[in-house]
């Protein structure tokens, strides 16, 4: 283990432990104004008129007429408005806002605001969608040939549901406009995304906008793009009431219903098999984007690049579509499109193996890519693919092989066990050339005369420990104590744009820039002097340039790898399951802090287990999310998993600091297919191709299996 992996006390431990860390809802001011949205009750309608109730002194309304800049919240494209003008596109679409000093009164006034609509027809299901936001294609080899020569062709359909980030702190933002400066602070992942969005919506020059990240109570992708919306809306409001703080903190129901969540998916996979090998895959991926494009293009890109999984399949034909529906826009959630397609490919491989009478794990290993093999986009796996060793480790931890064989032979009368295993990767950093072409990250270090060094970057600590790991990297490179390095919550008036806190890029990409900056500072170090250094991103030379036109080249510089085995025990009377254990091996390169990385892995695995089973989000006849509270949207508790064990495998990445790769998203990505494989074995079922897998359904599968047995 590299010495840098040795855990330290996290930089933000003390204030978070003692409850003195201030999240956006904790700030206090005597003249705070609270904001409440007026939202569309219809999935699709024309706005005829907005009638505000009489507003008492100190209260005011805010709508599109108050947008002084462009009525656009910039995400990737520019189709989302700050406030709707003449049409609404999903239940919850913001039409207006009421602001004022008393939150109860604001709420009542928002409820009393009457908007007259002409209801229009709505499309709620992607099968009915008539708008394709994005349609991507790529491939290689000759699929037609492979299918015509195949011994056998398999075709299956897969579907996955919404997943809500369910960060413990809901979305919240606060804005104040004073002396020509608009200051916005809140719960967010990407200060400069927010900064750009506000400038566009308010028409203020960039220098007149300041964004500060407050302590943030979890993000998981949910605070990547959505805070740009809130900040644009509040920024517009704040400019109407100069000199006052305007704040919105969502209640849980509002947050669950109207903020972005994971894209539900439907995928169709066709596989050609010849001589026991998969020779070709034809893949059709469809994601429900909801009403606006937001992050769908990039989520979809990652999803389809991961669609063939970790396998080397000679011929590929992949299509991916992001489809519009009149539902809440979907967006970033840890894994970013990959959990959906990994679910599909892993299930497909399990089923083909079963049909061929082969052990699914052996079948998968026989197809797994190796160093030097082409990636799905005809890039190269430049570094070691450590899956065989990781599989061995997981087998040892879980006793997978013996259990798999035992449960295949015999099951208990009441309790039935099953075990499954999945293999996956997560492409580290931005997809394609985004880092080089769009982000162009800049970092700085500032050394004070007393020898303390401050990190200047804008990556936000949302719980993943970036304050600590950045500081460790800089301290190690400078050869100074960790306590001598500090990294506060980013403030755009003080720090450069080192890019967003997304894509498992912060530590690998920005951390490496900081390491390089620290190496320079070490050389230039003069005791007793204030000194600054800056460092800019350069793409590593070894990469095959990626083209989004035809999805060719290295989509990622390197990959983080995951293997998990999951054992389930079903009660055949109730259909309820116990998660007996989940054993995983992860390779994220050098852990910059073993305790932090382990915590990230465990947390991600648990979210994956929730995604597989209990986290269900249904919609009503208007496409509105029905599971809008922690009593309806159940997330795992401390009592839900028997054993959750994680082991780290290290393949160092020479272009990450001390060999670190991306980590944050990896652990969630491949949990669901392992879970469902275990469920299939326990339930004696075949072809369970959807998640979440509910307890009621388990009973049906059990009933069917028992009937089969009695025949």
């Amino acid at each position, binding site marked *: 283990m590299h010495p840098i992996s040795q855990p330290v006390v996290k930089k933000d431990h003390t204030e978070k432990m*003692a409850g003195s860390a201030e999240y956006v809802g904790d700030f206090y001011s005597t003249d705070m104004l609270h904001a409440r949205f007026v939202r569309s009750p219809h999935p699709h309608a024309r706005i005829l008129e907005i009638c505000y109730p009489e507003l008492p002194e100190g209260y005011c309304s805010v709508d599109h007429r108050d947008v002084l800049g462009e009525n656009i919240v910039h995400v990737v494209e520019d189709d989302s408005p700050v406030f709707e003008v003449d049409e609404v596109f999903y239940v919850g679409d913001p039409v207006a806002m009421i602001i004022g*000093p008393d939150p109860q009164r604001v709420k009542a006034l928002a409820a009393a605001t009457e908007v007259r609509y002409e209801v229009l027809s709505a499309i709620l299901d992607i099968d009915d969608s008539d708008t394709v936001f994005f349609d991507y294609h790529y491939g290689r080899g000759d699929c037609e040939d492979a299918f015509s020569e195949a011994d056998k062709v398999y075709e299956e359909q897969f579907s996955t549901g919404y997943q809500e980030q369910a960060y*413990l702190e809901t979305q919240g933002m606060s804005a104040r406009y004073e002396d020509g400066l608009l200051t916005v602070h809140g719960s967010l992942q990407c200060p400069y995304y927010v900064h750009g969005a506000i400038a566009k919506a308010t028409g203020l020059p960039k220098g007149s906008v300041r964004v500060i990240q407050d302590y943030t109570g979890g993000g998981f992708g949910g605070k990547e793009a959505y805070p740009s919306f809130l900040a644009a809306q509040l920024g517009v409001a704040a400019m109407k009431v100069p000199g006052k703080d305007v704040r919105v903190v969502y209640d849980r129901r509002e947050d669950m219903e109207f903020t972005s969540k994971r894209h539900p998916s439907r995928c169709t996979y066709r596989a050609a098999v010849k001589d026991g090998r998969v020779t070709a895959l034809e893949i059709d991926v469809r994601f429900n984007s909801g009403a606006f494009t937001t992050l769908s293009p990039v989520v979809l890109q990652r999803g389809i690049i991961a669609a063939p999984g970790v396998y080397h399949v000679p011929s590929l034909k992949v299509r991916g579509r992001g489809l519009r529906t009149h539902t809440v826009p979907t967006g970033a959630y840890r894994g970013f499109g990959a959990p959906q397609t990994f679910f599909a490919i892993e299930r497909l491989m399990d089923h083909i193996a079963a049909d061929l009478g082969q052990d699914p794990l052996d079948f998968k290993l026989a197809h797994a890519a190796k160093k030097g093999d082409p990636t799905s986009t005809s890039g190269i796996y430049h570094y070691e693919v450590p899956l065989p060793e990781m599989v061995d480790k997981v087998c040892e931890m879980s006793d997978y092989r013996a259990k798999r064989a035992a449960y295949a032979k015999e099951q208990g009368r009441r309790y039935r066990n099953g075990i499954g295993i999945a293999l996956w990767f997560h492409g580290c950093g931005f997809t394609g050339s985004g880092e080089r072409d769009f982000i162009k990250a800049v970092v700085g270090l500032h050394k004070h005369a007393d020898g303390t060094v401050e990190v200047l970057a804008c990556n936000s600590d949302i719980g993943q420990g970036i304050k600590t790991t950045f500081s460790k990297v800089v301290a190690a490179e400078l050869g100074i104590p960790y306590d001598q390095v500090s990294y506060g919550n980013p403030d755009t008036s003080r720090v450069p744009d080192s890019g967003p806190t997304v894509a498992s890029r912060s530590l690998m990409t920005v951390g490496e820039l900081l390491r390089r900056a620290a190496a320079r500072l070490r050389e230039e170090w003069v005791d007793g002097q204030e000194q600054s250094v800056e460092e800019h991103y350069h793409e590593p030379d070894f990469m095959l340039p990626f083209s989004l036109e035809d999805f060719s080249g290295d989509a990622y510089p390197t990959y983080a790898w995951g293997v998990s085995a999951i054992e389930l025990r079903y009660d055949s009377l109730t259909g309820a399951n116990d998660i007996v254990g989940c054993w995983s091996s992860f390779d994220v390169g050098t852990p910059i802090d073993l305790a932090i990385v382990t*915590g990230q*892995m465990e947390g991600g695995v648990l979210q994956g287990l929730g995604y597989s089973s209990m986290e269900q989000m249904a919609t009503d006849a208007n496409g509105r999310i029905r599971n809008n509270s922690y009593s309806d949207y159940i997330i795992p508790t401390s009592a839900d998993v028997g054993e*959750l064990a994680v082991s780290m495998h290290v393949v160092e990445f020479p272009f990450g600091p001390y060999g670190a790769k991306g980590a944050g998203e990896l652990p969630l990505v491949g949990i669901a297919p392992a879970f469902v494989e275990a469920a299939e074995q326990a339930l004696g079922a075949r072809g369970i191709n959807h998640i979440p897998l509910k307890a009621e359904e388990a009973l049906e599968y059990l009933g069917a299996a028992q009937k089969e047995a009695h025949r």
Partner: protein
Amino acid sequence: MSKTQGSSHDGATAAVMSAANEAVTTATLPTTAAPSVRAVSVSFVLNGREVTWEGDPSAKLLDVLRDDLRLTGVKCGCREGECGACSILLDGVLVNSCMVAAGRVGGTEVTTIEGYCTTERFKVLDATFARRSAVQCGYCIPGMVLAAEALLSANPHPTEEEVRTGISGNLCRCTGYNAIVDAILDASKEGEGLW
């Protein structure tokens, strides 16, 4: 209690300290008291100090603590009794403060993280949570720490399973719970005699 100006860190700290330092604190509240409801006066011991609060007795204790008494270490994750972020100790018993009416706390002892963090027991938990890196985003943590206190004071030597059950009313979306459970188990050993 003193009113503070501006939305600054200092403002909030000043308000918290005034609640903790003055022997009797009275707050009149624009936020939680609806004008039509008759305000009542409620006296209780908050983090070791007697306070008197006036307002609508049906107000949520969570709002009273956060908005009126400025104890923002009490977090709000749902307001519906489902997440445990707002956990406090009421006469030593762990409760969700969003499910307690302010009128009910007259004559009780209320402990929030702001009070608890000055204790010897906290120091032990602080050290074990730090060593295990059990704090990620931190939003569940004040509630989680008080859940740990409630558990250990009822059962100073819990098994892992008892810890898992004991904190199962406190949701954490970040950690996967292992580090928190281990930190509590470590504290039960290292704090021998304290609980």
